[in-house]
């Protein structure tokens, strides 16, 4: 699980180690990555809204 989260975070960030990527593609299944990706996209949106609200006082 922690491995999936780390890989999704790396994808969000845009930087991933080649070895990790190969490992994910060989051993993992697609569904968990998609679900975690969608959830983290929602978290990102909430974060951005929070930052914007804070900045605007």
């Amino acid at each position: 699980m922690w491995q999936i989260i780390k890989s999704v975070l790396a994808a969000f960030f845009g930087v991933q180690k080649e070895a990790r990527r190969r490992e994910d593609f060989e051993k993992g299944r697609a569904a968990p990555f998609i679900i975690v990706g969608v959830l983290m996209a929602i978290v990102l949106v909430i974060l951005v809204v929070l930052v914007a609200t804070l900045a605007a006082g």
Partner: protein
Amino acid sequence: MRKRLLWTAGGFAFAGLSGLASADGWNMPVGVTDVSREIHSLHMIIFWICVVIGVVVFGAMFYSLFRYRRSQGAEASNFHEHTTVEVIWTVIPLLILVGMAVPATATLKSMYDTTEADLDVMVTGQQWRWRYEYLGEDVAFTSNLATSREQIAGEAAKGEDYLLEVDEPLVLPAGRKVRLLLTSDDVIHSWWVPDLAVKQDAVPGFVNENWVRINEPGIYRGQCAELCGRDHAFMPVVVQAVEPERFDAWLAQRKEAAAQEALGVDRDWSLEALMERGERVYGTICASCHQPDGSGSPPAFPALAGNQALLDERDRHIDTVVNGVSGTAMPAFRSTLNPVEIAAVITYERNAWGNDTGDAVQPSTIADEWLAD
């Protein structure tokens, strides 16, 4: 020696850019509202961030090109990934973007806060003039280009405020919060005054909001910033900000004048008085399309001089001016002009340039028979 040369060149470049950044006419103006100042400083901060990024990136590139050139035996290193470097070049732009977004969001929010205004002004774009209405004050007028046709045609020397002058500016009180409600009667216009940091579209069927609190009395000029047809360049914006006491006096005087004008509707006007008034209205409102000599620009804008249908059918003439002609460029003037102006301009059109009907259309006729509903 070489190092000193480099420093000198760098110094000159910096001084040049600083000069450019503050030079009149090259940069956006600082403006005369708190918002315009905020926008200007944001613009400058982001400008300098871009300068620093440019210098660092291109500096590193040119340095590498020069220092590690092939003729000096440099060899390319071949590697596929370098996570640390990739993280660094992702994190730095992220931080810069967030750093710029924080002050920008704060400014945006204050720009959109149109609440608690002391005065509401409706701004309506029309081909090709602006109309201003002080809501709840019974004061409204159109603001027309005041630059002479001779200057535009190149037959006279251009004045200092060429194409940036109007017959009646929008008068606003300095120091008070003024809410602007922008809309249009025909096509999309855009009300733009750089010194007030306002550039807002005026869209038919929509009301956009903006606001200004002008810190310094003065005259601020702008233009329509959305291509809106043939005379797009001929509908400037002029805002005159005056001390609040002077504004109150001005508004009271305009209200009084409007009341006087309303009284004028009921009295009987002589042909001469109507002609004189009508000539002025024609010059500011009608002449841009139908030409000062009534010759029009057929087929879009029919001639009025010697127009037999117009001379024969008085009621149709009145109907055309009051209600416009749908599907053509002829707008309805029932809400733009008052009964006196409508009667006067119709009388003028029926008696000028060799038209000689002798008709004196009375303001009371217009008010009772054409505008009463």
